[in-house]
């Protein structure tokens, strides 16, 4: 079955696949996760603030992002970001945004909605008595969040946040629709140049599987260790 396959094409394209493609995928994953968690935490704090305009605003943003397919969101931001850039810098023309920044902004904004829900659940998992006790000790609201609530909440959230990061890592493959050279984009370009679709797509699937599977096993181990401590 595999007799007329050319596995050599994988060896030949390894540097391109990993130094160009996988580097883009990993950079995008790390930066989008970081930005998404920061933004998502702000959204969660807005939702839980008890100030109606803020919580309604954050809530509708989260609902909007979660009701659209990621592919559509990628298209939205790809066309929208140049105009936002024009508006923010007061330029006379829409700003040209490279594929990297465009996809980074997209994933940060999109994943922030999902991270917001995770952070919100994490904050709500901390017993009310904790913030009451902090108030009673005379801490301000910001201090009680920063020193009491968030450190515990994030500790509880770590496994879920990491699982979401693995999902994000897999989702970044969708930048393919913008013809960006991420790992899958690189594999697909080699596949079409050399007419080796079967070899390249099987290899790409194997690489994604190995990375995601080992990462999720690590998360599982971490989860057990964290559970013992608590």
């Amino acid at each position, binding site marked *: 079955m595999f007799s007329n396959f050319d596995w050599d094409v994988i060896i030949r394209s390894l540097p391109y696949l990993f130094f160009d493609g996988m580097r883009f995928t990993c950079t995008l994953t790390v930066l989008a996760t970081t930005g998404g968690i920061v933004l998502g935490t702000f959204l969660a704090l807005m939702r839980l603030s008890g100030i109606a305009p803020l919580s309604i605003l954050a809530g509708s943003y989260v609902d909007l992002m979660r009701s659209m397919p990621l*592919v559509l969101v990628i298209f939205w931001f790809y066309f929208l970001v140049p105009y936002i850039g024009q508006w923010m810098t007061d330029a006379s023309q829409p700003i040209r945004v490279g594929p990297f920044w465009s996809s980074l902004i997209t994933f940060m904004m999109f994943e922030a909605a999902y991270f917001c829900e995770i952070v919100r659940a994490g904050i709500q998992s901390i017993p009310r008595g904790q913030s009451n006790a902090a108030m009673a000790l005379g801490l301000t609201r910001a201090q009680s969040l920063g020193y009491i609530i968030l450190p515990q909440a994030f500790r509880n959230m770590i496994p879920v946040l990491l699982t979401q990061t693995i999902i994000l890592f897999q989702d970044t493959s969708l930048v393919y629709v913008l013809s960006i050279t991420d790992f899958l984009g690189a594999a697909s370009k080699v596949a079409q140049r050399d007419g080796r679709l079967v070899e390249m797509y099987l290899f790409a699937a194997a690489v994604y599987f190995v990375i995601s599977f080992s990462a999720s096993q690590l998360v599982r181990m971490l989860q057990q260790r964290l559970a013992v401590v608590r």
Partner: protein
Amino acid sequence: MPVGGLRSFTAVSATADNMNYHWNWSIFFELSPDGVHTYLQTLFIGTWWTLATALSAWVIALVLGSLVGVIRTLPHAGLVRLSNAYVELFRNIPLLVQMFLWYFVLPELVPKPIGMWLKQMPAASFFTAMVCLGLYTSARVAEQVKAGIQSLPSGQRMAGLAVGLTLPQTYRYVLLPMAYRIILPPLTSEFLNIIKNSAVGLTIGLVELTAAARSMQEFSFQVFEAFTGAMVIYIAINVVIVGSMRYLERWLAVPGYVGLGQPAAMH
């Protein structure tokens, strides 16, 4: 080469060079390049394909996912390991890559005549997307079904067996009716996911809602109207499904069992 993603980007630069964006909402009622339908109608046709793909894939996902999920709770180590491997396989490869495997790779791996038949099949991208989405989601449904069964007190299984039911009967009459009620909320979000995920079908040439909006944008240059149209339709679908599932939950609720452990609906 039937790759939807690698199109030219002339449309982008054309709009980006304009000084200001020209809104034109009446574009929806203008005739699309197919000469028969208005742009609005092309979006509705896309919606139809989105729903057709998602619903038929959901049937596959529900049947296979229930089967695999039940197997994962059976007292048989070999079968459990096999079904765990099934779930891990489909969960750890990106959906887009799975789409390519089914569409480009599978026809090359099967015997030649079957491969030819697969390639020449009418509506190949629809059936490919249906099978791919169905299997991908089945792994996630299996995860929920397993969690639902395991969230039941183990006394229920024991009691079922003790009163003389066989193992299949215990599942059919005792465990599954409760488990499905418990996992209804996470199943709802999986159903919403399958509708959103069907947009990935555009990479293999399925003209569902997102692809219809994309092609409207390419031909009419009205980027934001096209994507707004698609967005509104997706929101409407979401609202209808969430509303009807709430109704279904209330209708199916077992009196006295309201607070029974609800597994968190994650993503």
